[in-house]
């Protein structure tokens, strides 16, 4: 907080104390207070313009008291007190919507107090300190005076926002002025609009309009449109007008003050102007062009940052759909777009700026409560987000030397965003009323939970200032008033108490915020290196602790120290492993989007819930798991969940449920996807599999084996193809991806009740579970997941084909033997299979037996690439540091098998290699 506001706050306190002891005839104190306030107002930094305005209002009221124009001195003084509390709130933090709202309310009250004063409009300007002027005075007493002034559109507009919806006289006045203006106007379109507005006003004036407030807004819109072309000639007056029209309700109290334009820049209106005027001409949008000297680093950073921003915004937006009134979420989304807009503008990316800007305008309307983030508006916001993502994609492409393109629908979207209502977008959701109810319910619950301890009423009750009943009573009568204001008005608590309670509330809220995760961005390669180094440290430490001189048992002190270091090193290792873990939260929230989109497309009603999204998983796996999950979630919604009618028919709830959960179990991460749809139809699956020739007969297949058929390529039980799924490719990809992560997937399903997909994944990709095998003097690591079994064959199990190809028989299955020592040309290895061990491995086609000397045991190793100096070695997938610090090679069994198949005569091959 700046020193200025510190000072201001302390003098505010002084002034409030003075105010409390103020007597009606104590002009001395009154002047003192006035002077103090003035000083604060002057000293306030620019960003606190709202607070500044409020102070000026207070001065106005003080002046009124001074001149004896107030009906009720105590009331006025009290209002000033409350207003000053609001000022305090406003300046003791960065300007934000909450403080703005508080200030707004205080202002409204003050103005009400002023407007009941017996003073006439002409008297008003004499309130010396107020730098207000003649044409913007709002008081209803002004009606007669200003009616003659309604000669220009913006004056009408300015007047419009001051009138009360109930005030039919004002409406007729407006009607008259509009009619007059319309007859003056030379532009036919403007004429038309004005006539329409006049008709509406007339209707409202005669009380025919069903909702006066609505008419007011409508008239405002019409006037706004009418004044649009005029804009070019008088751009200064227009922005303010448009802003006022945007939110007739909330802006009303602020309108009369001249300082108001200070607030305007953050409103969407001024920026909207070039958009609209250029609309008819510029339908073709040229993509941005990266200049040669563009800062690629900067752009890359921008893309990365913006993607993250948008990702965060997306989940906030989705949450917003369920609870449209969550201010925090709105702000998150708003901030994201705003940041993107700002950065894009800075980087000269006009198209991005344009889109982000329009989306921001839409969001600002949501933020200001003008529209609710539901149905069409939510869709529109999401579409803008997708478009932004696409554009980041193309920007990245351009950075990498490609061409920057604009998404096809860019122009269309821009047009819709410019005027959503005209494009038929509305807040109505498409018949998902039941869903809304459900969401409403859960939103209600979460709202209840939310901030329970930080509600002003609770704090006041805790402070013992009021009883719970009083708070409830105040709340029940509260119509748009702040609780604090109500309680002060009713004389239940003093402004001081409110101030204290507000301070506590503020602290509670900030505490809540700061308890969130704080993080530092670290480049991934640095992180990887750190983790490598820690791994190395562990090996070095274990070498040290097994040093002979320690094992002799004479060096107690040293042994103790080494043991201590060992402990630290182990902790460090745990920590470094934890560093690569990130929660599944982002992945899960992406799925929420998938569910939403697919459900809408298929006309299904789906309630999506997630659980355990804080479960952590290796950073590298997060991306890998997203793809299969998308497929599975899509399938669950498209194939699993039935249409609402079908669900009702089968006696289920109309709303389908899809549940995605994750947890740790037995050193694995388990991700479960459960739906309560129709389940897998094993008969249908069998029939399809037989048709496609995937199986020979349907006999002897267990239930789970049948379900596993859905992973086969080309398998799909969907009767018809949709653009969502049904081509039978998805599940094949799912299995591949999961297997590439060394994971497993299991299915259980009950017909008519739903299915459960369980994915088990290792905690991290970096650690491979491997079997250490010895061949001659060499040791290799065979990934355990690739080993079916290993055994030592008896003599009679071995047979040769044509004296060369060796086969081994295991449980009736004949498998070729691959001699690793031949393949890798390793001397001094065991050549007789009956003395060594056979490890059964496989490639896609068939199983083989790998001959090794012996199995040394299971190890967890960290897989690393071999140095670039050796290139790709067939049969070897990488290396790993073994416990003794040496490098062990990790075998790629599938490659080995195909290698052996390519060179059936390994011996000859390796010998020729020797010669070479």
């Amino acid at each position, binding site marked *: 907080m700046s020193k200025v506001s510190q000072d201001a706050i302390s003098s505010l306190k002084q002034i409030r104390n003075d105010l409390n002891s103020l007597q009606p005839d104590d002009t001395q104190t009154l002047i003192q207070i006035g002077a103090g306030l003035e000083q604060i107002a002057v000293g306030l930094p620019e960003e606190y313009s709202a607070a500044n305005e409020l102070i000026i209002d207070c001065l106005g009221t003080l002046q009124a008291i001074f001149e004896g124009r107030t009906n009720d001195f105590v009331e006025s003084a009290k209002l000033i007190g409350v207003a000053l509390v609001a000022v305090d709130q406003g300046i003791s933090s960065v300007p934000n919507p909450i403080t703005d709202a508080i200030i707004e309310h205080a202002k409204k009250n003050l103005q009400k107090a002023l407007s009941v004063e017996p003073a006439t409009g002409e008297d008003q300007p004499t309130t010396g300190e107020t730098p207000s002027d003649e044409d913007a005075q709002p008081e209803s007493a002004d009606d007669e005076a200003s009616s003659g002034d309604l000669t220009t559109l913006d004056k009408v507009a300015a007047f419009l926002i001051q009138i009360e919806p109930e005030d039919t006289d004002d409406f007729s006045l407006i009607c008259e002025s509009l009619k007059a203006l319309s007859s003056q106007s030379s532009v036919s379109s403007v004429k038309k609009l004005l006539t329409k507005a006049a008709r509406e006003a007339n209707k409202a004036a005669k009380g025919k309009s069903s909702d006066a407030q609505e008419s007011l807004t409508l008239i405002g819109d019409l006037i706004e449109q009418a004044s649009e072309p005029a804009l070019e000639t008088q751009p200064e007056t227009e922005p303010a007008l448009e802003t006022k029209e945007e939110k007739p309700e909330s802006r009303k109290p602020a309108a009369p003050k001249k300082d108001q334009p200070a607030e305007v820049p953050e409103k969407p209106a001024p920026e909207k102007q070039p958009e609209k005027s250029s609309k008819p001409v510029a339908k073709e949008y040229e993509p941005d062009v990266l200049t040669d000297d563009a800062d690629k680093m900067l752009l890359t950073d921008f893309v990365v940052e913006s993607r993250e921003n948008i990702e965060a915004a997306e989940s906030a937006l989705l949450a917003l759909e369920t609870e449209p009134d969550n201010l925090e979420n709105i702000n998150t989304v708003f901030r994201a777009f705003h940041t993107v807009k700002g950065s894009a503008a800075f980087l000269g990316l006009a198209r991005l700026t344009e889109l982000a800007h329009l989306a921001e305008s839409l969001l600002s309307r949501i933020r200001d409560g003008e529209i609710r983030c539901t149905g069409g508006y939510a869709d529109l916001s999401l579409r803008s987000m997708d478009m932004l993502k696409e554009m980041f994609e193309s920007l990245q492409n351009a950075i990498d030397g490609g061409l920057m393109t604009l998404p096809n629908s860019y122009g269309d979207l821009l047009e819709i965003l410019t005027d959503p209502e005209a494009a038929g977008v509305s807040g109505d959701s498409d018949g998902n009323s039941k869903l809304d109810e459900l969401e409403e319910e859960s939103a209600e619950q979460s709202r209840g939970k939310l901030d329970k301890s930080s509600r002003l009423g609770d704090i006041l009750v805790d402070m013992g200032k009021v009883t719970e009943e009083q708070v409830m009573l105040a709340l029940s009568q509260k119509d748009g008033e702040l609780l604090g204001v109500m309680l002060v008005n009713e004389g239940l608590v003093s402004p001081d108490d409110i101030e204290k309670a507000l301070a506590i509330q503020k602290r509670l809220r900030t505490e809540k915020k700061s308890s969130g995760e704080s993080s530092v961005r670290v480049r991934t390669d640095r992180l990887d290196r750190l983790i490598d180094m820690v791994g190395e440290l562990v090996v070095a430490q274990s070498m040290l602790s097994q040093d002979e001189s320690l094992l002799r048992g004479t060096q107690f002190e040293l042994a103790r120290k080494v043991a201590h270091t060992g402990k630290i090193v182990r902790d460090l290792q745990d920590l470094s492993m934890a560093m690569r873990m990130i929660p599944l939260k982002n992945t899960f929230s992406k799925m929420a989007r998938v569910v939403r989109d697919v459900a809408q497309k298929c006309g299904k009603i789906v309630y999506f819930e997630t659980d355990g999204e804080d479960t952590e998983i290796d950073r590298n796996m997060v991306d890998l798991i997203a793809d299969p999950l998308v497929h599975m979630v899509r399938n669950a919604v498209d194939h699993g969940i039935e249409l609402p009618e079908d669900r009702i028919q089968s006696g289920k709830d109309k709303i389908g449920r899809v549940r995605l959960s994750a947890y740790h179990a037995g050193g694995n991460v388990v991700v479960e996807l459960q739906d309560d749809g129709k389940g897998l139809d094993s008969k249908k699956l069998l029939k399809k599999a037989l048709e496609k020739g995937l199986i020979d007969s349907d006999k002897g297949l267990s239930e789970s084996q049948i379900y596993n058929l859905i992973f086969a390529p080309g398998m799909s039980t969907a009767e018809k193809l949709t653009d969502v799924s049904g081509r039978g490719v998805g599940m094949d990809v799912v299995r591949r991806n999961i297997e590439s992560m060394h994971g497993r997937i299991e299915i259980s399903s009950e017909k008519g009740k739903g299915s459960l997909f369980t994915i088990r994944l290792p905690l991290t990709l970096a650690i491979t579970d491997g079997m250490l095998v010895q061949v001659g003097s060499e040791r290799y690591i065979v990934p355990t997941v690739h080993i079916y079994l290993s055994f030592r064959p008896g003599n009679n199990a071995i047979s040769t084909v044509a004296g060369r190809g060796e086969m081994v028989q295991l449980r009736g299955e004949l498998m070729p033997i691959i001699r690793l020592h031949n393949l890798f040309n390793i001397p001094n290895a065991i050549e007789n299979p009956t003395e060594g061990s056979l490890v059964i491995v496989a490639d896609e086609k068939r199983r083989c037996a790998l001959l090794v000397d012996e199995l040394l045991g299971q190890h967890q190793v960290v897989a690393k690439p071999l140095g670039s100096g050796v290139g790709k070695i*067939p049969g070897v997938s990488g*290396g790993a540091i073994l416990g003794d610090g040496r490098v062990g090679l990790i075998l790629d069994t599938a490659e080995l098998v*195909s290698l052996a198949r*390519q060179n059936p005569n390994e011996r000859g091959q390796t010998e020729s290699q020797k010669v070479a």
Partner: protein
Amino acid sequence: MEKETSTNSTQNQVSTEKVNGGKFLTFFLQNEEYGIEILRVQEIIGLMPITRIPRTPDFVRGVINLRGKIIAVTDLRKKFGMEDIEQTSETCIIVVQTNGTEIGVMVDKVSEVLDIADAEIEPTPAFGASVPTEFLLGIGNTQGGVRLLLNIEKVLSDQQLLEFTNEALSQMV
């Protein structure tokens, strides 16, 4: 052999490349003293257990664990077609940086870090087909004797290795 002659023709080109003087790390292979630009050298480590890599040319000794990083080790003796000798306590591995990666180079012993002036560097003379001179930047003719200045990048990014692995890969397909 044919290849050698063809590279010989590019010989002139190599020698016309300006070789700047500066500090060189010198080492021995048999009785010959070689030099590597010191800026290429990351570190010198003693011999450590090397894991042999199957199906690679014999001059690739294998891989070692350099503080958690796996790097390949090339045996320069084998590379230059010299005889194999017993490893001694002086045998060591010079870790060099080429093309952003580290590669170990096994040599008989490391000698010293030497300043060789521009003027002392002579272009590589042509020896004819039998001597692979394409690996040389030039010859440092100093008072202490003659040092063969290696173009280590060329030595390590040798086609031979690439061809070998490509061949092995193509067998698999």
